[in-house]
């Protein structure tokens, strides 16, 4: 039996109190059995945090184990602060995506800002210097004031934090749908680079080594954030606003520099962010990973205000704090480095050999728990999974047109004006995308962003993708599609996809219909990752994304990293030279289920979503990578077909980048392409495995031969016209003929117009 006594003033432990801590009766019984006595208040808080879904993955673990996580390129798979993949010449890339949905729903600015802060710390605690940020955002429709408030606040929060820290925000996505009205999704991804030999992990070892808190003082903010993130949003959630932490990017920048200096100094053996569940999770996880014991005196933790209890200190989620394990004789060295960066570094405990996670308040033991069991004895659930019959019906449903569909050129303009498709310039213009002077392709420039690192020739292509409509209609195909689209986007820049991190945003796993979606989406992700050779290196599960109006659309977001042999060869998305040849790759089938066309014209998300042929996808990717390398680069631009299909892809190729004065005209003849399809099917079907490239006329023959060699169908569609010219698409049963300037005007003003900005 372990020993621990209540701290003066602690409330008595009752079943109600345990329930308020989101622990079921069975879970609390398990805790008492584990301790051999009733828990103290501090222990209840510790278990509540570590056994929350957010920290324990108790509902998702068995499914996550089915994801492929290995490959020759994997240096560090799931389980650490971030995954790590091998790059050429001794370099490595650390990356991870994480959600901050719940805090952003109640306090968009700070919620989003602290989401960025947390993901940065996850990456630099691996010893990697963050070189890029991305974010994947979902909101309700912009015609509601509340959603406009959330969009504006989240975008500002992301910008203000990343801009100040000096890490470029280079990519991501923003999507809109009614399912996100009560519960926006804010997923932030960070990518860092390091020398593989500098990799450090978060395992406490070495008996007698000293634990230090580095960075900000601990306050009463964010107490119970981890358990808040593990419950559904209700009308009461507004009262949770004080549980949202407040970010200080200036301190973060100092912490970043201090941490990297500490890691290379050799004075420390482990470092971990004090993220969700703060001191509790960082110290307990460190102890469990290292297989050692840890003893902390909570009274030594520098507090922002007087009178904080051990419970509060353990569970505070005050931001910009790190837990460091220093070699026993190097404490002063660690403090000197922290002081150089104007940070406090305070010893609060040590590594022990008794395997216990012990918290004291001076001489009194307030918590004492077997360390490994605290992490490993968390119950694992295998919830029931059953598809909702309403989804089955939705998949069978086809839209019933109330009004005749307008001609294709009007449809195209409507799609370009549709916020999920329209340019996100309004958002990314608020993010510093060029700091660190390494951005080869920034937002709006390529299908993925490409960054280079000083001292290396290679480039990293990074993107996030996930279309919830497909997942809603068929979670397995939707999961596959998220990986396939991300891989395609990376490959369009010429990069070889290397691996992914995933952020799995779903409703309550305790509902069979939701758990079915989760399980099937993961199966799709796993199959696609295996087929495309891109292992999962980590990520985040965000359950309980529910508001009074129901669960969010199931939204797995895939963050992909790819490697480009030479950053200066990165291939952009847009046409660049007049008279270049336009080539359509892949096969277009009549696949309008879940399409933007049906969403915009009929207000319907229904039907069978497009199927992903993983073998065809792999061939397309291999071709795109080969074409970017062969002969010093055969293609001038490459853009995949996704939401909005070939029609939107061709328009985007013509419209050009966000800051060009004008786009290019386009002369494309599709009268001999996909012979069985009508104009609407051909232009707006969202079949996967497709891309459009442009190349110089002299290289068209070589490109065509290369495509045939890779078994990729290729169709010579036409040529790039003059700057500011007309976009002409000829089809068998229709023609689109519009000045590119008109398309640009619609595409680039759609979102600011709706925001009144």
């Amino acid at each position, binding site marked *: 039996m372990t020993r621990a006594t209540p701290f003066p003033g602690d409330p008595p432990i009752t079943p109600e109190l345990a329930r308020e801590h989101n622990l079921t009766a069975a879970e609390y019984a398990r805790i008492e059995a584990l301790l051999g006595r009733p828990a103290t208040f501090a222990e209840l808080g510790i278990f509540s945090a570590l056994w929350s879904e957010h920290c324990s993955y108790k509902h998702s673990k068995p499914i996550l184990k089915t994801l492929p996580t290995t490959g020759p390129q994997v240096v560090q798979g799931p389980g650490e602060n971030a995954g790590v993949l091998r790059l050429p010449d001794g370099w490595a890339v650390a990356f991870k995506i994480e959600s901050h949905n719940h805090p952003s729903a109640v306090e968009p600015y700070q919620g989003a800002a602290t989401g960025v802060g947390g993901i940065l710390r996850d990456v630099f605690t691996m010893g990697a210097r963050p070189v890029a940020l991305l974010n994947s955002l979902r909101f309700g429709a912009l015609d509601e004031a509340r959603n406009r408030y959330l969009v504006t606040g989240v975008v*500002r929060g992301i*910008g*203000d934090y990343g*801009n*100040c*820290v*000096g890490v470029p925000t280079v990519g991501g996505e923003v999507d809109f749908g009614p399912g996100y009205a009560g519960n926006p999704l804010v997923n932030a991804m960070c990518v860092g680079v390091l020398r593989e030999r500098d990799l450090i992990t978060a395992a406490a070892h070495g008996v007698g080594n000293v634990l230090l808190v580095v960075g900000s003082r601990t306050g009463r903010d964010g107490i119970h954030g981890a358990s808040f993130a593990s419950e559904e949003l209700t009308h009461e959630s507004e009262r949770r606003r004080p549980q949202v932490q407040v970010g*200080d*990017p*200036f*301190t973060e*920048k*100092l912490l970043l520099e201090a941490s990297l200096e500490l890691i290379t100094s050799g004075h420390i053996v482990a470092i971990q962010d004090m993220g969700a569940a703060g001191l509790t999770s960082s110290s307990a996880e460190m102890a469990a990973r290292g297989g050692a014991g840890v003893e902390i005196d909570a009274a030594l933790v520098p507090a922002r205000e007087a009178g904080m209890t051990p419970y509060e200190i353990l569970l505070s989620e005050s931001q910009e704090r790190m837990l460091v394990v220093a070699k026993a004789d190097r404490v002063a060295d660690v403090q000197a480095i922290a002081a150089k*960066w*104007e940070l406090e570094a305070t010893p609060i405990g040590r590594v022990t050999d008794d395997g216990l996670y012990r918290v004291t308040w001076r001489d009194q033991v307030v918590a004492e728990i077997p360390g490994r069991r605290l992490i490993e004895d968390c119950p694992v659930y295998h919830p029931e999974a059953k598809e909702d019959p309403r989804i089955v019906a939705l998949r069978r449903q086809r839209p019933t047109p109330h009004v005749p569909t307008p001609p294709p050129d009007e449809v195209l303009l409507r799609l370009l004006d549709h916020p999920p498709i329209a340019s996100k310039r309004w958002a*990314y*213009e*608020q*993010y*510093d*995308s*060029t*700091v*660190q*002077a*390494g*951005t*080869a392709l*920034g937002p709006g420039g390529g299908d993925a962003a490409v960054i*280079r690192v*000083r001292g290396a020739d290679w480039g990293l292509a990074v993107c996030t993708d996930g279309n919830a409509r497909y997942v809603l209609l068929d979670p397995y195909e939707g999961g596959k599609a998220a990986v396939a689209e991300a891989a395609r986007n990376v490959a369009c820049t010429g990069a070889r996809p290397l691996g992914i991190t995933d952020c799995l945003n779903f409703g309550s796993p305790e509902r069979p219909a939701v758990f079915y979606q989760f399980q099937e989406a993961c199966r799709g992700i796993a199959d696609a990752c295996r087929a495309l050779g891109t292992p999962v290196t980590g990520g985040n599960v965000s359950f309980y994304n529910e508001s009074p109006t129901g669960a969010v659309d199931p939204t797995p977001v895939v963050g992909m990293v790819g490697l480009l042999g030479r*950053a*200066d060869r990165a291939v952009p998305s847009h046409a660049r030279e007049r008279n270049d040849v336009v080539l359509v790759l892949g096969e277009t089938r009549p696949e309008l289920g879940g399409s933007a066309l049906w969403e915009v014209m009929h207000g319907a998300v229904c039907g069978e979503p497009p199927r992903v042929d993983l073998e065809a996808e792999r061939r397309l990717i291999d071709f795109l990578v080969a074409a970017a390398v062969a002969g010093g680069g055969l293609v001038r631009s490459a853009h995949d077909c996704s939401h909005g299909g070939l029609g939107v892809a061709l328009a985007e190729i013509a419209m050009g980048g*966000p*800051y060009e004065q004008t786009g290019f005209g386009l002369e494309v003849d599709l009268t001999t392409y996909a012979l069985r399809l009508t104009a609407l099917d051909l232009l707006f079907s969202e079949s996967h495995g497709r891309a459009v490239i442009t190349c110089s006329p002299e290289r068209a023959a070589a490109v065509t031969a290369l495509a045939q060699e890779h078994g990729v169908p290729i169709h010579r569609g036409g040529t790039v016209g003059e700057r500011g010219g007309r976009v002409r698409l000829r089809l068998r049963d229709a023609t689109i003929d519009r000045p590119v300037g008109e398309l640009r005007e619609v595409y680039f003003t759609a979102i600011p117009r709706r925001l009144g*900005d």
Partner: protein
Amino acid sequence: MRRVAVVVFPGSNCDADTLHAARAAGCEAYVVWHRERDLGQADVVILPGGFSYGDYLRSGAIARFSPVMAAVAEHARAGGQLLGICNGFQILCEAGLLPGALMRNAGLRFLSRPVSVRVEATDTPFTCLYERGEVLELPIAHGDGRYAADPRTAAELEAGGQVVWRYVRDNPNGSTNDIAGICNAGRNVVGIMPHPERRIAPVLGGQDGARLFLSMEAGHATQHAVGVRAVGDRHPGV
């Protein structure tokens, strides 16, 4: 080889980029921490971009009290070459080493995008390798970039040829007279809002910023533009 000191404040975040750009131009560039009081016999001092002290009060308002600033001011008073980029420009205005101030962007939002600026003055140590009237494409990334000066100061700047760069095509932040960068009356202290250090190689989308650093290395601000033009063709490595 010119000695270039890049001053690092807590919260500076363009210091490494600036250091690299100066070195790529052939300078001997090094970092000076804000607590130091000695600039190490610098020929040129650069205050880089970033968010010194988080810019929580007002951009640059705290940094100007840093210990190093006395030496920076002394360097400028002695005629030494001094450049402030973005937050560095804000600090120079706060410190009174350049006239005017940088206020919240007219659109009230942070703006990160390429802009076009015209080189208006080539008789400064940082623009001597450019042609007057040349239009450059450089990125901006700022929330407080609207250059503001009272009408008299603005008129003096114009009359004295102290407007070094001017936004053309569009004015992204509402700056007075489309001003993107200025110099002091002595022409040795220069401030610029866009980021030349982020455009020094084709892989970064262009190299319009490179000659600013090559100008530094080329030495003295000069009326002998003919003599140095050849140097302008040198392209720095990346």
